[in-house]
Every structure is written in structure tokens, then in C-alpha cells.
């Protein structure tokens, strides 16, 4: 089964270290980076598992000797998709490791194949979900009939999810055993509001930066590599886009969009189509450097087509600054979303909205305190991580 040929050289027995492995080694040396990464992962996991942590739908419900698992009928398709993405994302490094021996024999990269397999699994899962699942939504039901159950496994914090349905008797409570962070003016549990706000923050951050960086990388690499008229036209476009104040554009768009469009998507859209300029300029500058490198000249001399040259030779060598920019960009997007919600421009569960609620009643310090702390910590950890990555990809590093 051994795929590795016998080696003659002592240096060969050492494992090859990729650029990624070197950067990871540098990152691991920084406690602040590792703590930040841990906080980000914990936050993502908590946002993902929100219905299991705080809510009203029990995981298991036993009545008249019959057991059921209600929560799995209450989770939305989006939540299932997010679970699948998370699990497959965690499984990705594992599958790359499994595919590596085969890829090494053929001299390719295991990533393409792994991503293909994962993409297929993801699509299958999504299809099965859409075809087989019957969602059910009747809120309040389980909490009201709690006494009828023989046994029930409620989330850690059993509390009504709909603010309108909240236990009004429980409103404006400071932190207690039942509500670890207290409740707001309608009796909604703050842990729950923070968790669902984290979902908004994460979605905005990742989606807006993901789309923005993809646009920026694609246009920037074309612009920098080919130059000439394309470059000139794109640079002028970037100048126009950068000239538009983001906040005012968002406010304008929110005013004119039909109410059928969720405002959150409008915000993500505006962020994506205005945020790419930074990534574009980073990528363009990288390509201006890379296109003069000898390995690009070599690729041209070998007759490698332009698209392959860009994808395999040029772009992979220019992505490091994009990674740093994306990390800072997520922090910026979270901040902007909080600002918008604070100004009551979007009505999704959000930290900014929570902050605004708390602002009007200074005496309920736990409300604005929790929201402020959540925003502060999130922006802080993304900035710390971005800084650590920037240092780790230092060009003086031996690549």
C-alpha cells in the first residue's frame, strides 16, 4: 500500500512543509491569534447551535409514553444548510489528508477533489432536506404544556423565542440563574437575543466579505495582469464606487427597495458591491508585482493559457494580503451592521438593535452592556487575528 518510493536522501524523510503550514506555524506562536481564533470558532458554533442553547422547542419530548424529537422539525432549511456547511467544513482538512497520497502520486493538489466531494455531499443533503422535511411552526406550544410531558429536554435556557409571546412577567430582569444575562423590556432572554444577533453579524460579515473579496480578486487579477484598457476602465470604476459613501447608499437603497426584499439582504448586497474595491486594489497591486516574476514568464514561455496562468500561478501567490483584508473586513462589516441596526434601519435580530434598546433605558445596564461587549469582543478578535495573519505572511518569512 506504500505509495512513497524508498528514499535515498535524509532530507527527503522530513515532511514537506507547504506555505500554508509555515504560516500556520507562525500563527500558532501567537497566543492572541489562537485565543481570537478560538473565540471566533466558539461564537460561530454558538450562533449555529442557538436553538439548542436558548429557545422554547425541546430536543426530546415524551408524552403518553411516546417520545418525539420536536426540534428537528422546527429547524429551518437555512439552519440545516449551515449545519451541513459547518460539519463538511470541519471534515475538509480530514478529507484532504486522506486524498493527499493519491494526489501526490499524480502531482496534483488534493484540494480540488476534496472540494468537489464536499460540494456534491452538500448538494445531496440540501436536496434531501427540501424533498423530505415537513417544517412545523407553532410557537409557545411546548412551554405552555410543559406540565403535560412525562419528560422533556428543553434547551439550556428555556425561553420563548417570539418577543411578542414573551413572558411579560419576566421583563427587565437583571441577570439571574434562569436568565444568565437578564431579560429585556419584553421579557426576552438576552442570551437568546445575543445568539440570534450573532447569526446576523456572522452572516453579514462572511457573506459580504466573501462576495466582496471574490469580486475584488477576480477583477483585480484581470486588471493587474492584463493591464491596458481593461485596467484603465476598472480603475475608473473603482474610483467611482469608492466615491459613494456606503452608509448613505445603504439608507437610500433601504428606502426604495420593495418590502418583499429582506432588508438584511439589501445590506449584504450593498456591502458586497461597495466593499470589493479594497480587495480589487490589493489584488491588482499583487498582480503588477507577480506578472513580472520569472515563474510567470516561464509559464508564458511554456505556452500555458492565460486563465490557467492566472488561476494556478498568479492568484495563489497574491492571496495572502486578501486574507488579511478579509479578516479586517469582517470586523468592519459587523460594525457597520451594528450601526445600521442601531439607527433602526434594519429590523433583524441584531446587536445594534439591542444596543439601541438598552440606550433608551440606562438603568437596564445588562442590556446595553451585553450588546456592547458582544460587538466589542467580535471586532477585537477579528482585528487581532487579522494582525496576526499579516505578521505571519511577512515576505521575509522563508517560503
Amino acid at each position, binding site marked *: 500500500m506504500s505509495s512513497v518510493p524508498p528514499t535515498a536522501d535524509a532530507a527527503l524523510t522530513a515532511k*514537506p512543509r507547504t506555505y500554508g503550514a509555515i504560516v500556520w506555524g507562525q500563527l500558532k506562536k501567537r497566543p492572541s491569534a489562537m485565543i481570537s481564533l478560538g473565540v471566533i470558532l466558539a461564537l460561530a458554533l454558538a450562533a449555529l447551535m442557538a436553538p439548542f442553547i436558548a429557545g422554547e422547542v425541546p430536543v426530546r419530548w415524551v408524552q403518553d409514553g411516546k417520545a418525539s424529537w420536536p426540534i428537528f422539525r422546527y429547524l429551518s432549511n437555512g439552519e440545516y444548510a449551515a449545519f451541513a456547511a459547518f460539519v463538511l467544513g470541519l471534515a475538509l482538512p480530514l478529507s484532504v489528508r486522506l486524498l493527499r497520497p493519491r494526489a501526490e*502520486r499524480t502531482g496534483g493538489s488534493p484540494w480540488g477533489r476534496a472540494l468537489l466531494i464536499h460540494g456534491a455531499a452538500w448538494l445531496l443533503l440540501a436536496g434531501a432536506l427540501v424533498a423530505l422535511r415537513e417544517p412545523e411552526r407553532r410557537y409557545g406550544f411546548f412551554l405552555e404544556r410543559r406540565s403535560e410531558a412525562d419528560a422533556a429536554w428543553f434547551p439550556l435556557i428555556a425561553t420563548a423565542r417570539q418577543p411578542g409571546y414573551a413572558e411579560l412577567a419576566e421583563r427587565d430582569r437583571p441577570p439571574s440563574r434562569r436568565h444568565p444575562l437578564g431579560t429585556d423590556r419584553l421579557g426576552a432572554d438576552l442570551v437568546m437575543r445575543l445568539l440570534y444577533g450573532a447569526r446576523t453579524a456572522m452572516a453579514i460579515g462572511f457573506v459580504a466579505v466573501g462576495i466582496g473579496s471574490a469580486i475584488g480578486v477576480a477583477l483585480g487579477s484581470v486588471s493587474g495582469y492584463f493591464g491596458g484598457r481593461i485596467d484603465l476602465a476598472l480603475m475608473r470604476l473603482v474610483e467611482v464606487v469608492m466615491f459613494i459613501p456606503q452608509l448613505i447608499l445603504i439608507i437610500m437603497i433601504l428606502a426604495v427597495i420593495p418590502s418583499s426584499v429582506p432588508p438584511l439582504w439589501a445590506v449584504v448586497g450593498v456591502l458586497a458591491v461597495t466593499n470589493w474595491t479594497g480587495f480589487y486594489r490589493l489584488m491588482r497591486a499583487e498582480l503588477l508585482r507577480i506578472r513580472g516574476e520569472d515563474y510567470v514568464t516561464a509559464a508564458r514561455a511554456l505556452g500555458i493559457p492565460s486563465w*490557467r496562468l492566472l488561476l494556478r500561478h498568479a492568484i495563489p501567490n497574491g492571496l495572502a494580503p486578501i486574507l488579511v483584508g478579509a479578516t479586517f473586513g469582517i470586523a468592519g462589516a459587523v460594525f457597520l451592521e451594528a450601526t445600521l441596526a442601531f439607527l433602526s434601519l434594519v429590523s433583524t435580530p441584531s446587536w445594534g438593535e439591542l444596543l439601541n434598546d438598552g440606550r433608551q433605558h440606562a438603568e437596564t445596564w445588562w442590556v446595553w452592556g451585553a450588546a456592547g461587549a458582544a460587538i466589542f469582543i467580535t471586532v477585537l478578535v477579528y482585528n487581532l487575528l487579522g494582525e496576526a495573519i499579516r505578521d505571519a505572511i511577512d515576505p521575509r518569512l522563508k517560503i
Partner: protein
Amino acid sequence: MTAPDAPDSAPRAAPPPAGAPSAPAAAPPADLLLDVRDLRTHFPVRRGILGRTVGYVRAVDGISLRLRRGRTLGLVGESGCGKTTAGRTILRLIPATAGAVRFEGRDVFALPPADLRRLRRHMQIIFQDPYGSLNPRMTVGGIIGEPLKVHRLARGRDLEDRVARLLEHVGLSPAYRNRYPHEFSGGQRQRIGIARALALEPKFIVCDEPISALDVSIQAQILNLLDRLQDELGLAYLFIAHDLAVVSHISDDVAVMYLGRIVEQAPADRLYAGPLHPYTKCLMSAIPRSRPDRPRDRIVPRGEVPSALNPPPGCPFHPRCPWAFDRCPAEVPLLLPMPSASDHLVSCHLCH
């Protein structure tokens, strides 16, 4: 592998360049591989916000070269004389301003992109800097195997075998194929670059100062490797260097470049034995001797290299030439054969 045209093993079967304009002084030899005619590469210098062109850097200013199959042509000159630009222009990696390059009779500059990509299989390049010439994100196997994949010459098991053979050919263990370039020394990386150039089984390789960046002890190894590969594979080299001693060791013919022009061209042994152009004499006298205690005539050119943006009138070398006379700044000397030897070309008023 059989090429779409004449295979490597039959160098004399090549057709003569068809319809070559303005017949040169000597009839083209039957095994002519590369014919460079009056090549010029000028880079525009742009200034101001409107990007107005204020002048041209005449990096290559009218050079003509000929290279036969399996032979080596040395191209020597100091830094900035345009020898690297010349090599890259010949491969159409830099657009030429004027002139023509014929490879096996085909006009390289006139080829449509698809034909050019096919032609690239036959002409390759080796770089000076072994650190910048390999993509740091690809494994050695990926770097060497990619041209084979792109040109659909091999895949799967066959691809692996060919990569392994190429690595062995340049003196590296095939087990290195999964490693990344940064794990290798300069000499090893240069071998990887050579293996990449050899992957497509070219007939012609531009060696762009392939040993200048290496330790002296490694230089000889790489030179010997290039020499061996030439014998085994029948390669033709355009060997670019700034060291006349190295070039005359490996080359059949040597062309000396100064400020974008060829000032002297001759078979290596003749040039080495009796250089005629003052610039060549200067270069020659700069070669370190094995007996430094013996007296020798050191000829040092005056001043600095003039700018290629604004070259001096007449002979480009006249401001620095120890023997310059009144005709030199007035009249551009032509590259003409010596009466005594038709294959020894000199561009100097002292000789003609």
C-alpha cells in the same frame, strides 16, 4: 514523441527558410534553426498624467543572429546592454518593435496565438534567478509536469514516469517531486528549472545567465549538465552571460553586445584568440588570469555606460573607447565581415 514537423533526430531534414526577404550576405545553412533579422525592442518612456511618450529606451537596437541545430551561440555584454531583452524578445515574451525572428523557417512574430502556443514546445528558457523562477506554491512534480499536462503530452501514470525521468535527467532524485521549491538549494532549483524547460523536448533553449547567480562550485556543475544535455538531446542554446570566459567555454559562436547592438561576432576560439573590437578587448582583458603575477595589458574603458534612452551618436562605444578618432562620433559603423575571415564580423571603423 514526434513533433508536428521534423523530429529532433533528423536535424538536416529541416526545410530552408521559405521566402526569406532580403537574402543575407551568406546563403543560409541547411540546418539553420533560428534566424533573427534586425531585431529591435524599444520601450516607450512615459511621463506626466497623460502618459505622453517622451522617448524610447532602445534596449535592443537592430541585432541579427543565426543559430544552427545543436549549436550554442553565446551572447555577451555588460549589465543593461539588452541581452536579456533580446533573449525574451526572440521567444516573443516581450513584444518586438521591429525585425523578424524565424524559427525553422516560421515567422515567430506573425504566428496566431494557438500556433504560437504549439511553437512554444520547441523553444524554452532557463532563468538567471533560481529563486524567482519557480512558483513557490507548486510542488516540483507539479512545476515539471504542468507543461506536459497543458500540451496534452502525458497524463496519469505516464506523466509521473516522465516527471521522474526528467528529474533523473537533471541529476535529482525522483523522490523530490512532492517537495516545494523553497526546500532546495540554488543549484538544485536551477536543475528543476532546467527539467521544466526540457519537459516539452524543445529544440532551442534561451539560457538567460543560468549560472550567474550560483556559487562558483555549482556553476561548473550546471555548465556540465547543460553541455551533457546538449549532446544527448541535440539542443541549440542561446547562451546569455556577462562573463566572456564562461561563454567561450560553452559556445560555438559568440556575439558581443554593447548598448543594444552587436559589436563583434565570431567563432568562439577565433574571438578568444584575437578580439578585434575595442569593447571585446576590454572584456577580454577583464578575465582573471591563472597567473596573476605575470604582467598583462589591462584595457579599461573610460567612464560609464551611456543611457540607452539617449545613446551617443555614431559608434555607441566611442565616448569610452581608448582608440576613438574623429570618424567615430560622426558615423555609425556597420557590422561587416573581416576581409581575412568571412565568419568574423566586427562593427568598428578601425577594422574597415
